[in-house]
């Protein structure tokens, strides 16, 4: 994962964009592109569709610059906007044969543990086990873990992206961690996984 733009720089660019600088907005797009693209692909794995949606949200930001307010975190804001744009577009596509737009949108992520630096067999095994557990969590919980640990968002920002209260986000994460621990003890070959024991 490449280094992200420091939030302060993003804020600065956002300010410049809002005062009418198109190139500042283009810079924002460029520096957030891979995160947005990755996120978009989780929601609907169609490269061209995701790219088009990203184009549209930035074009809209440009057209609407007057009514766009300062934001606390540019990246989190863009993730929210992209998500709602994509879900809207997908709903439009679907209404052709299915009129019900449910709250249950697809989200697919495949966690792939980074074990290339681990030498110990046992360690790799442990990590793989955990990876398996995470991949078998319910979708919403995977989305949350993805946003927290891949996109590095705060609970507050995740709450915005997932349309949940901050406390619900926190509870959901605890639930995920707890169920990981439970799963682990049940099919964990007698190994006890001390997850959150100290909490």
């Amino acid at each position, binding site marked *: 994962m490449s280094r992200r733009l420091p939030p302060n720089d993003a804020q600065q660019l956002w300010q410049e964009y809002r005062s009418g600088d198109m190139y500042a907005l283009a810079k924002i797009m460029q520096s957030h592109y891979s995160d947005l693209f990755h996120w978009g692909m989780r929601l609907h794995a169609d490269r061209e569709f995701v790219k088009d949606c990203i184009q549209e949200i*930035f074009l809209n930001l440009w057209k609407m610059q*007057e009514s766009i307010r300062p934001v606390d975190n540019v990246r989190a804001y863009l993730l929210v906007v992209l998500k709602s744009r994509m879900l809207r577009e997908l709903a439009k596509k679907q209404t052709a044969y299915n009129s019900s737009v449910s709250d249950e949108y697809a989200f697919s992520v495949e966690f792939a543990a*980074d074990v290339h630096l681990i030498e110990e067999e046992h360690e790799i095994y442990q990590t793989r086990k955990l990876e398996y557990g995470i991949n078998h969590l319910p979708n919403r919980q995977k989305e949350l873990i993805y946003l927290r640990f891949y996109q590095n968002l705060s609970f507050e920002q995740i709450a915005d992206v997932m349309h949940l209260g901050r406390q619900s986000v926190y509870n959901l994460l605890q639930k995920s961690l707890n169920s990981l621990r439970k799963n682990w003890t049940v099919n964990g070959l007698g190994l006890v996984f001390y997850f959150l024991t*100290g909490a």
Partner: protein
Amino acid sequence: MKPYESYTIDDFIQDEDFRDWVQGNSNRESFWLSFLQQYPEQWETFKHAERFIRATNVTDERLSEAEVRKEANRFIERASAFIPVRHPAKAPRNTEQSTVSPFDFRWKLALATLLTVVLGISWYLSRPDLIQPFPHLAEASKKQLVETINDTQQPLRVVLNDSSEVLLSPKSRLRYPAQFTGNSRTVYLTGEASFSVKRQSQPFMVFTGEMVTRVLGTRFVVRAFDLDRNITVQVLSGKVSVYKAKAKQEPVSKEVSGLILYANQAALFEKTVGNLTKTLVANPSLLIKSEKEASFVYDEVPLPVILRELEKSYGIPIQFDEQNFAASRITATLSSESLYEKLDLLCKAASASYEITDGQIVISPQRVHAQK
């Protein structure tokens, strides 16, 4: 120092620094490497947290730099076709007429932009040299205009046929006749340029969209990028008049839509509102004078005397009530400070404050706060 000895798995995985380290982005590599020696009883917790972070890794999408750049360029291309919608801030309820006309105006602007883009494309396709006549400029139809675009990173020096000099900033474009004829010297600027105009009886005029800058012979900077909200003119020396292009083509008519600027003054044209206001340049410089320059070293000098000297040295009018400050005597050496720094120091010493209004400096006594 964080309470690492009592850290739980949860604390570790929520610790950004720890996460960075596991993901190989830390700048505290040695701290985390020696962590377990320092806190051996945390081994289990530490390992679980480390595994968890590793397990939440997601492979990146294959997306090349070139693809991202292509998308950014695609955005710039498409966005350039739109003049962003800007409403005057908190517009009061207006009659229908006044809400319709700015829309109309935007339409025309959008059309004009489109036209320019189309012309630009055909211009690009025909691959001409930088010098190119511009037949679509009505005012210039008779004269042969040449165009210089500065797409380098450095300012570009352009010498006009009256031997006036223009320093064209990057990303800027200047159109001018190969030969000045008639009773005015007219050039068209998009972007930023600094002008050194040779004094002649024919006025020199810089057209920048809706604003015109007119001079006889002087040095000044015009900034008028399409995407900027304002057009500014900063005067370095001499006298410049600035007015709106719409009002009247002839500046001689006594329209209020114009301003006269002297050295160190600047004009600001707000494109959205169409307002033209006078202010000061960002860093006023001393006027070049033949007589000996002021040293700005003061020993028990009354403030009004100092202010009059500043006024003369910078050529900027300073307004204040003589009586208010007659008693303030200043001892200071201000030779290396900028004008604004000088004013800051003087005002502080005299418990006063200053503001810039209409290209002048106004100094007033600070309101004395009630004693506690």
